[in-house]
């Protein structure tokens, strides 16, 4: 890895703050899963306490118990020394415990302001003070340096922007204890920095913070202490100054990973796809080439137009101008069906909305693109259906009890593997991965990256979109930087520094969203 984070950011000296919240033998069982085995842990007033662990280790479960979202199976929680029942979200909030939950959970049909005040509306004589709330919300947002309007529908914002609103929301509520469950999963560096500023400010105001993340450098940048969960058990707690990356990873997955970014370089073959001055809603004049055996990375801020570009390439949205060459030949791609026939595969950015049929079995999800192939005449071949699903499950090491388990019962990382896995059997030539490692733990990330290598070695080409710079930086043979719908810079492998790329992506201040629609 690059210089360890604690060398760049010396951890603050830990004050011996008093204990604000203490867990004693906290335990949670779901039917069939022992998600949290008795955990003892004390949080100190005013600290930033990171919690790390593999997908499915029980991090979110712990948070759900602390915020009254779910009842605990056994154990005790002491808030400022007093036992707290924490039976409802309301009770937790009354104590001053708030959370920004893992998946963005706000109301798309309400305005930003309405979401920020949801459950705590200002009203006078029973009449909502709507204007006042919008004004107040806007003040808070501006104050935090987020460049977002308070009066628009939440659903009109990108996922990342929604995530920022979720964070801003917590500050409205007289918070003493604030939990962030993977808040940066959908954020780019710029938004992440805004968020970190907010978190540090809250800490300065004496708020205790739990911070959950799969990104180690964020943990080292922010946290005072870090606790590691593995299989529902607390493996240990460390002062940030007294630990390092390798130790934490070892604690998390009980083995060491020499190399997360497994990058093999192949000699690029013939071009698979070439776009010439492609334009559409959200992007303009994009020309690029993807060759067999190479990863083309697309980096940019949220809303830079990368997703729009690839979904248009994939035929999901209309293109307004430009040309696409597939293996040198001019092609018209008017629907996703055309794209798939040519040999494209898209693992979309939102697995919940676009990637998975959550209430259907893993096997069906994996086989969805290839049912035509595994049907003989009219009927599906049961044997082939099973064999194909099992092959992907084994090959990708998807952690599922059976191929018949519902996709929704898998942890986030394993769901992501399905989104990717369903295209492997299909045998595509061009794979488009849009944010493929969102919410995925280190071990699984390494596996996914290894898989990229395998695809390349078989002569496929990959377009990799990531808002996480280290990922594209370490994996892409060619790195294109997007800014506001335009391709502004192109680099080879490691031919530019992080700082240069960031500067190119940022360059000018993004326009305010308000006028976009």
């Amino acid at each position: 890895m690059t210089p360890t984070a604690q060398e760049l950011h010396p951890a603050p000296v830990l004050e011996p703050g008093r204990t604000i919240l203490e867990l004693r033998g906290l335990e949670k069982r779901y039917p069939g899963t022992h998600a949290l085995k008795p955990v003892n842990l004390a949080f100190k007033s005013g600290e930033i306490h990171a919690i790390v662990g593999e997908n499915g280790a029980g991090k979110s479960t712990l948070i759900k118990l602390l915020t009254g979202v779910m009842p605990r199976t056994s154990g005790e929680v002491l808030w400022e020394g007093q036992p707290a029942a924490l039976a409802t979200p309301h009770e937790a909030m009354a104590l001053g415990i708030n959370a920004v939950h893992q998946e963005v959970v706000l109301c798309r049909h309400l305005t930003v302001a309405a979401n920020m005040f949801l459950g705590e509306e200002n009203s006078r004589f029973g009449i909502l003070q709507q204007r006042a709330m919008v004004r107040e919300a806007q003040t808070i947002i501006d104050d935090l340096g987020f460049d977002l309007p308070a009066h628009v529908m939440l659903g009109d914002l990108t996922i990342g922007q929604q995530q920022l609103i979720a964070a801003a929301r917590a500050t409205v509520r007289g918070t003493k204890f604030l939990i962030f469950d993977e808040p940066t999963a959908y954020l780019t560096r710029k938004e992440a920095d805004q968020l970190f500023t907010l978190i540090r400010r809250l800490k300065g105001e004496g708020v205790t913070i739990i911070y959950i993340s799969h990104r180690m450098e964020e943990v080292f940048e922010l946290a005072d202490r870090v606790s590691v969960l593995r299989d529902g058990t607390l493996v240990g707690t460390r002062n940030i100054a007294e630990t390092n990356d390798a130790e934490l990873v070892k604690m998390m997955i009980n083995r060491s990973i020499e190399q997360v970014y497994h990058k093999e370089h192949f000699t690029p073959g013939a071009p698979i796809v070439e776009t010439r001055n492609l334009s559409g809603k959200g992007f303009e004049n994009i020309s690029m080439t993807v060759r067999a055996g190479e990863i083309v990375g697309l980096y940019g801020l949220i809303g830079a137009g990368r997703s729009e570009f690839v979904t248009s390439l994939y035929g999901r949205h209309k293109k307004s101008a430009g040309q696409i060459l597939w293996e040198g030949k001019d092609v018209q791609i008017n629907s996703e069906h055309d794209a798939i026939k040519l040999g494209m595969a898209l693992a979309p950015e939102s697995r919940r909305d676009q990637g998975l049929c959550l209430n259907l079995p893993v096997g069906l999800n994996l086989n969805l693109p290839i049912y035509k192939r595994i049907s003989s005449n009219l009927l599906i071949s049961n044997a082939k259906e099973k064999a194909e699903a099992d092959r992907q499950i084994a090959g990708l090491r998807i952690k599922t009890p059976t191929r018949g388990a519902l996709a929704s019962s898998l942890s986030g990382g394993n769901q992501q593997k399905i989104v990717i896995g369903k295209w492997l059997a299909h045998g595509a030539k061009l794979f488009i991965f849009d944010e493929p490692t969102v919410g995925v733990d280190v071990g699984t990330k390494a596996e996914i990256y290894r898989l990229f290598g395998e695809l390349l070695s078989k002569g496929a080409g990959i377009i990799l979109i990531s808002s996480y710079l280290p990922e594209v930086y370490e994996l892409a043979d060619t790195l294109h930087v997007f800014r506001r719908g335009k391709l502004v810079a192109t680099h080879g492998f490691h031919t530019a520094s992080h700082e240069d790329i960031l500067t190119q992506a940022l360059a000018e201040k993004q326009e305010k969203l308000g006028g976009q629609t």
Partner: protein
Amino acid sequence: MSIEAIPAEKPKRNYNVLFGLTLLALLVLLWIVLSLATPSFASGNNIANLLRQGSMIAIMAVGQTFVIITGGIDLSVGAVVGFATVVVAMLINAGVPIAVAILITLLVGVAIGLFHGFGIVKMGLPPFIITLATLTSLRGIGLLMTNGNSININSDSFTAFSRNSFIGIPNLFWMVILVGVPAYVFLHHSRWGRYLFSVGSNAEASRLSGVNVQRTIYMAYTLSGLCAAFVGVLLAARIGIGNPTQAEGWELQAIASSVIGGTSLFGAVGSVHGPLLGAFILATINNGANLLNVNSFWQRIITGALIIIIVYFDGLRRRGK
């Protein structure tokens, strides 16, 4: 995914008004066309009839809208109306003072709504099923109570109410205002209205924000039951009988009015004025067809076709906003 739902915010409100206007424009257009087509349409007498005819569905549609905004549906409302006519008729004939009889009937509606809330929240039943079951059972109970007869209400002061007018406007239409204004304030300007939208949009998020989702659902169905029972009282007054088989199919008319008025069956989108306009558009179609002496069979065909056309263009306009 539309935004008309929340009128509170500036840019939305403009749009909301526009949307309301467009349905209103349609209604006005219908009225103008009918006034030209038939001399009797624009007569004061007919306008009064029209207002009376649309009133009951309009009130039901408002209650229904609350439920639909939460993402649910209430199929029982027609049966509740029929049942309420029986209850109020029996009470009045038994000598209970009219005000008390009405109050008890409204409470019956509330109780039915609470039962729906219970089935959905506590028993985990789909709204479609629990309200369908109530629809079936309630007609049975009403028939059992009346033994299949109509109950003739023997209080003239009760039945006179629905025929009379106040400053030239039929009492029944006053009742729409009586329900509509508080409903508007409730839905668009109170926190409970806000919670109806938030529950319909994302129940889990609402719960995590401390919104009492269960209570919100109870509230929606209770209001729908209450509106239906109120309509039952009005209906009993209007035709002077209690009969449990009345108002058959009105639930579908109420739902159609609500959807024509811009409510989304996926929840989280709706208003109070939309369903009112929707109900009066449907009433106008029927009234106009009667005045023009359109064959009853053609009336059905036209109604179906108009529903498609109105909802289609409404959808178009919204998407193309």
